[in-house]
Structure formats: structure tokens, C-alpha cells
């Protein structure tokens, strides 16, 4: 039985903090198993746990490596997986399912962060040099993430599976095979989905940003 990942609602709507946080590891392992056996609601229950853990990891990574220059969203997700899931007993499929959820959580985290950055949250008002405006490498990427997020929502209405493929590949850094496993489709299908989705998104984003 392959669960349908496209049924996942966006994280913002489903952050349900009532989920037991006392033992996130056991909880995530149990939810992964429940999902594999067909319980659709397991995914949405897993989401806040994964979201919170990704945030914690990000904060700790900062305190340990203040100038880390190889920070990949995938690395954060990997770490969350090791922390949350019982890696020893988990199947490849469980792992792919976890990554599907984590990609969604990562998307939400990055989009939220990008939005707050773009809204000009600048901290103190005594800036000597307005660095925010110097080279907006991050700003540009933040704008791109928000634009992509919106285009993905639009794509979700046309073809939910394709938007999911992009989410897992771009925000979660998953490989084509892992995506195929998580979605229960062939590698060829994922490749085709990815190609069309990318063209569709580029076209959509150009229309939005003349």
C-alpha cells in the first residue's frame, strides 16, 4: 500500500501543537509505520514534529558552526531524520516518506523566513551601513523562494503530484529514485514530471514578475 503524499495539506494550516511532544522519536517512528499501512492522517500529525525539529537543528547548527558555508537544507533534514526516526528498523520506504514530510516542513520554514526577510525586518534602527540593500544575494534568493512557493501553489491546483515532486527535489534535496519511492511511481514518471513542472513554474514566475 502506497500512501498518497499529495494529500498532505500545507504546513501552515496543520501545525497542530497538541501532538505529544514528550517522545518525538517514538512518535515519528509510530507515525511512519501508520502511514505506510495506509493511515493518511499520520502524515499531518508528523508535520509539526518534523518542523520543530528542523528548527531546533538549525538553531544548534548556528551555535556550533557560526560560519558554516556549506549549509544545505538536505543536511538539516538528514539530521532531523537521524534524530527523529528509528533508523535501524526503518525501511527505505519509511525513509522516503519521512523525507517527503520533511521537504514540506523545510519549504514552510524557508518560505516563512524568506517572507520575514523581504518584509524588511531590519532589527535596530541605527544601522550605520544599510547592508540589507547592498548585495541582496540572499534577498534575491528569498524573493525567488516566495515566488516559487506561490507558483507551486498554483501548480498544485493543476497537478498536485508535480508540485510535490518539485517540493521534494528542491526543498528536500531528494534524488529522483527517493521521490519515486515516496510517491509510488516510476523513476521515468518522476523525470517527466520534474521536466514539465520546471517549465511550467518558470513560465508562471515570468508572468508574475515582468
Amino acid at each position, binding site marked *: 500500500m502506497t500512501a498518497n503524499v499529495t494529500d498532505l495539506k500545507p504546513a501552515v494550516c496543520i501545525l497542530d501543537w497538541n501532538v505529544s511532544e514528550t517522545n518525538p522519536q517514538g512518535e515519528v517512528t509510530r507515525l511512519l509505520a501508520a502511514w505506510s499501512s495506509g493511515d493518511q492522517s499520520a502524515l499531518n500529525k508528523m508535520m509539526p514534529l518534523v518542523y520543530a525539529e528542523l528548527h531546533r537543528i538549525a538553531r544548534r547548527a548556528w551555535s556550533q558552526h557560526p560560519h558554516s*558555508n556549506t549549509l544545505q537544507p538536505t543536511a538539516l533534514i538528514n539530521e532531523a531524520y537521524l534524530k527523529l526516526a528509528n533508523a535501524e528498523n526503518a525501511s527505505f520506504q519509511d525513509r522516503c516518506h519521512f523525507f517527503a514530510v520533511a521537504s514540506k516542513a523545510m519549504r514552510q520554514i524557508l518560505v516563512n523566513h524568506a517572507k520575514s526577510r523581504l518584509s524588511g525586518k531590519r532589527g535596530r534602527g541605527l544601522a550605520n551601513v*544599510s547592508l540589507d540593500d547592498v548585495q541582496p544575494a540572499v534577498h534575491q534568493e528569498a524573493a525567488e523562494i516566495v515566488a516559487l512557493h506561490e507558483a507551486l501553489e498554483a501548480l498544485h491546483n493543476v497537478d498536485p503530484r508535480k508540485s510535490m515532486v518539485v517540493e521534494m527535489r528542491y526543498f528536500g534535496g531528494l534524488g529522483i529514485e527517493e521521490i519515486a519511492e515516496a510517491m509510488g511511481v516510476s523513476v521515468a514518471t518522476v523525470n517527466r514530471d520534474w521536466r514539465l513542472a520546471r517549465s511550467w513554474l518558470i513560465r508562471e514566475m515570468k508572468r508574475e514578475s515582468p
Partner: protein
Amino acid sequence: MNPPPAWEEIERLYHEALELPVCERKALLARASPALREEVESLLEADSNAELLAAPPTHVAADLLDGQPGGLAAGQRVADYEVESLISIGGMGEVYLARDAAGRPVALKILRSHLIGNAQAVDRFETEARAASALCHPNIVTVYESGKSPAGLFIAMEWVDGSTFRAIMDAGPVEIAQAMNWGGQAARALSAAHTAGILHRDMKPENIMLRKDGVVKILDFGLARHGGAVGPERNSMGASGTISGTLSGTLLYMPPEILRGETATSASDVFSLGAFLYELTAGQHPFAGETPLDVFEAIECRTVAAIGSLRNGVPREVDRLILRMLDRSPDGRPSASEACEMLGGAGQ
């Protein structure tokens, strides 16, 4: 009326076309209905341009972490400077208040280490250091030194004890005479830079400061000549596959020729300064709009109202001068030195 083509049809034809050599696609598409053909053609066009999504959003992820305050600790040394406190964090790096060997305050700008591998960011940082250190003017922030240190690339510059004009205007209206004096000083700095052959390219209230003793200081001279930061690119996908421009805050001060993708000239700086002066004297922005698109349209089409229609006490020549600075045609604008003269910009 024909119904729009079904998604499945689009998908099938798109993949079918992709499998053909480019020269044979046209014949295939010619057999489809016009609506379907248009859909698939536009998708194929996007496909040939697909740098987007090529790399994970590493900058923002790293920024998320770096958003936690404080890259450098108080007391830490960068070259000959001792860090005192963090002043601001931005996309490029951090600015610290630091002390030089003699104990004098300096502003220390550090390029974030995760951007050091980004050639464009490094190039831009170095361009800024070079351009600014070539300028020596009382109304331009002085760069003392730039270089490399284990903490990253750094620029040590004059510490300005004051606030940006963004903060000043946010705090409420300013007196006309005051505004003219400040505007005159800014125009004088710009005129000196233009005489030296250097453009600012990003004049806006965030980049102009007022020191506590009343001296205006312009920051961030000489932005890079490439990349999407100065003007939105014609093709909205930049070289790095990012969507550039329209969301960055600089749009409000961009002259129409930059929006059209033309090269910046000294007249472009004059336009941006004019938009700032208008905002400073009138108390509202000449091209304010709800969305970036509204702003685009305003810059390209809106007839700017005379400041006198919004506020009393603005000398007619100054009103006219500012409107001329905002002329849609670069040729119709005064030079920075002319603006400076008319504002009585001796800079007392």
C-alpha cells in the same frame, strides 16, 4: 468558443515534442489547435531556459542560521580592528562598530563567509571598496581600508554617528529649509562623484545618513555593474537562475531608463536623488504604489504633482528643480552640480 486545452493533452504534446529534434518540433505543433500549440510552445521555451531550481536554496538556509545575532564576538580582532558590537546584519554580511589601533571608532563591514565562494558577491564587495576609496569628499563616507582576514573580507570605514534618512522621514515631516540644506549636501556629494567618473547607482534614503552634527553622508558607492541588483534584467532569470529585482526595495528610486534595461548614467543618479528630495520635502513618495507593478507604472507614466500642491512653503524654483530631476527623459534632467547650486548647496 473553444474550451482551453486539457492538461493531459498539454502534457502529452510537451513530452512528444521534447523527444524530437528542435527543427522537427514545429511541424508537430502545427498539427495542434492554436490554443494547445501556444501552451506547449511557451512551456518548451521555458524549458530551454531552465536554470531555475538547479541548486538548493542554500543562501536562505544559511541566512536562516546566520539570522541568529552575532557572527563576531566583542573583543575579537579583524586585522588591526577590535570588534565592539554588532550594528546590523544584512544579506551580504554584518556591520560592526569597531575600534582602530588608536581607539577611534570605525564601521567594519564583513562579507559573510558563506558568500566568499560567490564570485559575484565578492566582486561586488571589492568594487564597493575600490569605488568608495577613490572618493574623498566630506559628504561621502570615507573608506579607510579593505582586505582579507580569517573572519572574511572586510571594509573599514568612517563611523557615522547618526541615522539614515529612511529613519528620519519615518519619524515625521522635516522643515523645508532643512530639507533643502540636506538635499544640497547630497547633491554636492553626487556631483563630486560624477566629476570623478563614479556613479552611485543606488541612491535612496537607506543609503544616505545624517550625522548628529548635521553633515549628510552618502554610503554604499559604486555598486557592481552586473547582476540584477541595480535594475531588473530584461530576462527575469538572472545568470544564477534567480528571479531578480522587482521585490527589492530599490524600485521606488529607479529611473525609467533603468526599468527599461538601459545602462545607468549620471542622470540616473540624479533621478534617484530627485525622488528622495521629493519625498523629503513633500512628505510623500512621488511614485508610491500598492504593488511593484503599480510602482513600475507610476515611474513610467504618472505625472508627478508639484510639491506646492501638497505642501506650502516650498520655493517655486526648488519645486521646479525637483520635478526636472524626475524628468522621464535623462536629457531633460539637470546635472547634480546644477541641482547643488540651485539648492544653495554650499552645505553650510
